[in-house]
């Protein structure tokens, strides 16, 4: 999979960009606030239809403009496809070869992207929601059906919470509980399948960069559930949730909120017997996230047969020199198509080769650079 050409119109502070990325590495250099992250976000948005940074779609449209547009020519499994996304009036529309794509899924089947941002580096230390997002982003890439499945779960959850607040109870509550359990079991199945693949790969990558004797361990922690989810069947998972929902019903009615289910879970990260969140150094925590990302890329390569598109937003300045060197060497050797942004070209030089495309970003204008 390759992005052959990229064009932007009125995307954040980038008024007009037209460029051909490098076959492998493309590096955007510029000082802070110039639009480097915006450029990477455009690629992410094109490939996932989701904004990279949380927020409303309308924020993607350049101030004063009424429509943002990102389009790209991709080489996918030997064929070239023109994909474009537009945002106007807070809504998005996607097109594949000029034809409106009816479902986003048409699209996800083909393009996958792994993004790595300074925010990701804080995941180990952050809240459970940060870690769930890290997991779910990887699940979306690995299992395209998860997009629809996670939406179904979110909708079932909203319905149930409404019933709790309205104190509906009775048979209607039971019907929605059962529906929630099924949708939840599916989400668990996906997350656990992903972790079964990713945990050993992450441990292996951490061994190479962690400079830590203790091994990295990842465990899925289902809130308020005694069942060992990983060993259970999907039906058993649904049944366990039904039991927990029933047991916690009085409390949940009181709070007007469902307290158990995939939305309340956490990814537990350990270094040996210790919780990384509490005991790992900042350097170790960042190395853990780096290991996760490398594992995700390698896992996609194994599962899809091709490498995802990689976006690295200014992470080099946040890693210590040795781990940054590892990452740059990994990128150079991986053969993946990579977009890097940096304030300091010397930090990413190791990832560059003769075919690297160097860009500068200044006040929303992207231009070519002969080399740093």
């Amino acid at each position, binding site marked *: 999979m390759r992005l052959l050409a990229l064009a932007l119109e009125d995307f954040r502070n980038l008024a007009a960009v037209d460029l051909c990325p490098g076959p492998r590495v493309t590096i955007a250099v510029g000082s802070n606030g110039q639009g480097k992250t915006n450029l990477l976000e455009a690629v992410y948005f094109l490939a996932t239809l989701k904004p990279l940074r949380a927020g409303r779609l309308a924020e993607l449209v350049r101030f004063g403009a009424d429509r943002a547009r990102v389009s790209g020519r991709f080489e996918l499994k030997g064929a070239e496809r023109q994909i474009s996304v537009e945002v106007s009036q807070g809504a998005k529309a996607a097109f594949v070869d000029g034809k409106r794509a009816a479902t986003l899924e048409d699209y996800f089947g083909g393009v996958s992207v792994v993004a790595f941002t300074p925010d990701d580096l804080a995941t180990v230390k952050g809240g459970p929601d940060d870690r769930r997002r890290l997991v779910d982003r990887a699940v979306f890439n690995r*299992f395209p*059906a998860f997009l629809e499945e996670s939406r179904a779960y979110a909708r079932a959850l*909203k319905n*149930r919470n409404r019933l709790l607040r309205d104190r509906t109870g009775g048979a209607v509550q039971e019907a929605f509980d*059962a529906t929630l359990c099924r949708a939840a079991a599916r989400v668990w199945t996906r997350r656990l399948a992903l972790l079964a693949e990713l945990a050993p790969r992450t441990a292996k990558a951490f061994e190479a960069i962690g400079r830590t004797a203790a091994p990295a361990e990842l465990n899925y922690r289902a809130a308020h559930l005694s069942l060992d989810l990983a060993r259970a069947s999907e039906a058993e998972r649904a049944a366990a949730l039904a039991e927990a929902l029933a047991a916690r019903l009085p409390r949940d009615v009181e709070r007007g909120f469902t307290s158990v289910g995939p939305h309340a879970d956490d990814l537990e990260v350990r270094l040996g017997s210790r919780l990384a969140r509490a005991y790992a150094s900042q350097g170790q925590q960042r190395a853990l996230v780096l290991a996760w990302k490398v594992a995700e890329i390698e896992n996609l390569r194994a599962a899809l047969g091709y490498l995802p598109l990689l976006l690295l937003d200014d992470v080099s300045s946040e890693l210590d020199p040795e781990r940054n060197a590892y990452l740059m060497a990994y990128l150079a050797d991986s053969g993946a198509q990579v977009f890097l942004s940096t304030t300091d070209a010397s930090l990413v030089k190791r990832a560059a080769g003769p075919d690297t495309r160097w860009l500068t970003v200044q006040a929303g204008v992207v231009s070519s650079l002969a080399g740093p």
Partner: protein
Amino acid sequence: MTPDPLNRLVAELAKLPGIGEKTAQRLAFHILRAPPEYARDLSKAVLEVVEKVRLCSRCFALTEADLCPLCLDPRRDESALCVVEGIADQMAIEKTREFKGRYHVLHGVLSPLDGVGPDQLRLKELLTRLEDGRVEEVIVATNPDIEGEATALYLTRLLKPMGLKVSRIAQGLPMGGDLEFADPATLARALSGRREL
């Protein structure tokens, strides 16, 4: 300045689902330019649809009389009843000519987020209908989304204790549709529901 009657027509047309201001304008101009009989026929058709079409008092499908043709047709199997969300679903199933039984239109599904509970659906009427014991099997054909599934479960719990056979239409891939165009979630469901040949 456009004349007021034209503005009024545009405004009324624009209230229709899927019709924006521009399309409404185009439709209005079309009506204006067409021979006057067209406008008369159109307005008559619009009026008749609200004056003459009502809901069947038994199955709540559309009808001109008290009971719809399907409820009156003696060739229909009265032991099988297909429960659907809306008229469009009934029409879709009827088009297949596969189903020989009768229908019951709920006019919606349970949807807490939209404030729809059992009382907003034609559920009491369904239960009343089932009292005479002629129906043996109820086929629940609500959509396979969260609300449709929850409604199906709700119905199952309500009807099973009455000694009825309750079944749910199968989910999977549309026939004739290309596998390659099916969305991943549908394909995943179809795969997990596979059967041995």
